[in-house]
């Protein structure tokens, strides 16, 4: 695990170093602050950010300061201010979704010279300050590919999905995963349990056990730290698809693949714009082909057929020729949500408002 992480760090840093022009190395270092809502080593969302922050740390002329477990209260406002006042930060990455409104907006208005790049927010021109930016990745592409692999590997044809809350971002992942699996075998069902919050390890373990008892043999999730779920699945001898970061180390036998963030791509772009004195990048989104997200390497047990199909779809995605939400799509109550002939492309705002589960998902919003 450590070797792998270090390897990532150094290669990433080397790549970044090579990409930077030499004149940036001089003068005062740019202080960049990172704020996480959970623990930096949670095997999940916060770790995916901390890993990328570690790569930014290796960039010449950059000083990184970090703070973890900062709640979405006045505490995050004070943390941002403290980074500005006490450490001289001029670029801050508050990485939790709930930080955006009102906390990021408030601090951005108060410190117009400081850039704040928020992960996940929906920056709107005219409404939000110009020193604020929001970036995010279209990770449902990776979910679709995980679904393809899971579809090939599942024997019971029942997949499990443990999710935090029925919000658009989560529903989009569940639906993409299911559509991917159904592209292999249309009879596959995905069984969903919503735990109610982002980090509830006990409930997540209970949900995992209950779904395994119901006969699901591949499990995936959308919670902040998938550690407990992946460990439970491995112990019970079923397969897993990871999320946020790689959990392969936790499940050497059952880990198939996973959807991972690659935050270093948007981070680097925003840091470079700041160093170069270019205007703040207010809205930044990207998917697989933009290198904003990536797949975990295939686990040892993934069949050749599964790899072949997933790689083929991935190649299409990289070429920008694959659409996941292509009509006709029905929800699991029988209503048509995307009519035949309609394609909702990745950037379609309709997808940001998703409020349904597709046919074949067992569970309700």
């Amino acid at each position, binding site marked *: 695990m450590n070797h792998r992480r270090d390897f990532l760090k150094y290669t990433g840093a080397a790549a970044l170093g090579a990409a930077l022009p030499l004149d940036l190395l001089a003068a005062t270092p740019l202080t960049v602050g990172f704020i996480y809502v959970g623990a930096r080593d949670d095997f999940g969302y916060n770790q995916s950010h901390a890993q990328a922050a570690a790569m930014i740390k290796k960039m010449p002329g950059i000083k990184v300061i970090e703070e*973890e477990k*900062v709640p979405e*209260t*006045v505490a995050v406002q004070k943390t941002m201010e*403290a980074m500005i006042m006490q450490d001289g930060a001029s670029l801050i990455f508050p990485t939790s979704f*709930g930080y955006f409104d009102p906390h990021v907006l408030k601090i951005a208005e108060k410190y117009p010279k400081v850039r704040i790049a928020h992960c996940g927010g929906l920056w709107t021109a005219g409404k939000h300050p110009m020193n604020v930016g929001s970036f995010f990745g279209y990770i449902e592409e990776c979910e679709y590919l995980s679904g393809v692999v899971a579809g090939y590997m599942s024997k019971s044809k029942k997949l499990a999905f443990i999710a935090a809350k029925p919000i658009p971002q989560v529903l989009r992942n569940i639906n993409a995963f299911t559509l991917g699996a159904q592209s292999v075998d249309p009879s596959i069902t995905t069984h969903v349990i919503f735990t109610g919050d982002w980090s509830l390890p006990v409930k997540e373990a209970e949900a995992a056990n209950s779904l395994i008892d119901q006969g699901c043999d591949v499990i995936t999730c959308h919670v902040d730290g998938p550690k407990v779920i992946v460990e439970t699945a491995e112990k019970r001898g079923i397969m897993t698809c990871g999320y946020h970061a790689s959990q392969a180390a936790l499940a050497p036998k059952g880990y198939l693949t996973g959807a991972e963030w690659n935050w270093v791509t948007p981070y680097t772009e925003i840091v470079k714009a700041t160093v170069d004195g270019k205007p703040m990048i207010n809205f930044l989104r990207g998917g697989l082909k933009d290198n904003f997200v990536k797949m975990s390497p295939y686990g040892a047990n993934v069949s050749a057929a599964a790899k072949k199909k997933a790689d083929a779809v991935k190649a299409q995605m990289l070429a920008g020729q694959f659409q996941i939400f292509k009509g006709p799509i029905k929800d699991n109550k029988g209503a048509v949500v995307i009519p035949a002939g309609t394609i909702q492309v990745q950037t379609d705002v309709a997808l940001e408002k998703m409020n349904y589960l597709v046919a074949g998902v067992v569970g309700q919003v």
Partner: protein
Amino acid sequence: MTPVMTRRLGLRLGIGLTPLLPTLAALCGTLLLFVLFLAVQGKPAGDACLLIFEGAFGSMFAWQNTLQRAAPLLLTALCVALPARVGLIVIGGEGALAMGGLAAAVLPSCLPLWPAWLMLPAMAIAAMLAGGAWIALCGALRQWRGVNETISSLLLSYLAVALFKHLVEGPLRDPGSLNKPSTTPLPDIYLINALPGLEVHWGLVWGVLACIAAWVFLRHSVAGFAMAIVGGNVRTAKLVGLPVNRLVLLACALGGAAAGLAGMFEVAAVQGSASSALLAGYGFSGILVAFAARQNPLAIVVCAIVIGGVEASGSLLQRRLDLPDATTLVLQGLLFCNLLAWEAITGRLTALRLRWQQQVQVAPHISASEASHV
């Protein structure tokens, strides 16, 4: 001065210092253990202590940071201290805060667009009623059904949180709040501003006022005195004909109202709507504050600032020394254990001293008068 008089004076002084001594000893013990804890792990303990001070009280910015974090704790601590007066250990302030915050956030959308001077008090009253009712329920369960209030208040707070989430993510959800389920945002006119010249919101002032009011009520009102009797000895209270049930309910309701008000300020001064961000553990930190203050409302003001300062300094410890966030949790945990330990030790010592005095039969009237003070 006769020996007896000197002795009496000494005792009187001793009694005057008694409430402070265990707290001071606990503070020293905490600091010592914390330094040891860091030193054992090879962390710079001295630097850490200096940074804690710098981050909490070292500058104007640090003070504002500290006060900002202390504001909700003042009110949630009252939710523990007021029921403690009637002998109840209530630890469910988080639930009352959630209910209060939700009531305050929802009220404006149920009423016409009143001016702020009318709507804000209405929101505060709604929050206090909701929070008060929630904790009064614990009191009622205890008085009429014999349910232990510590357990019931904790379990009821889980229920409140579940209900809160269900309503915020379901029936009361603003359809515009896509990935962060929240209630409809309050109109700007209902948002509470910061204090003039400061960045701390008005919740701090109201929190301090509430603590002072609680102190006056407990020390200088008939009902407050009656509550102390109920807390001291229920049978005596019943014997002299005090309405025990009503007093218990009142103490619980007042405590719950304070926590509910904290929820209202979180909504109107910080968040702008009710979402799960409201449930940041202020109700639970309030327990620590109330115990540190030995349930004295005036001491709560001091203790809330100390705990607020510890939380504020955690930020600096992380950024400067790369210590994990849990460092300040360890500090708070050590403080709590030390307080409880010293409380127990003091109780033992007093009992021992009384027994010793009775055994040697020196000036029995003095030990009797001391016993009545303790």
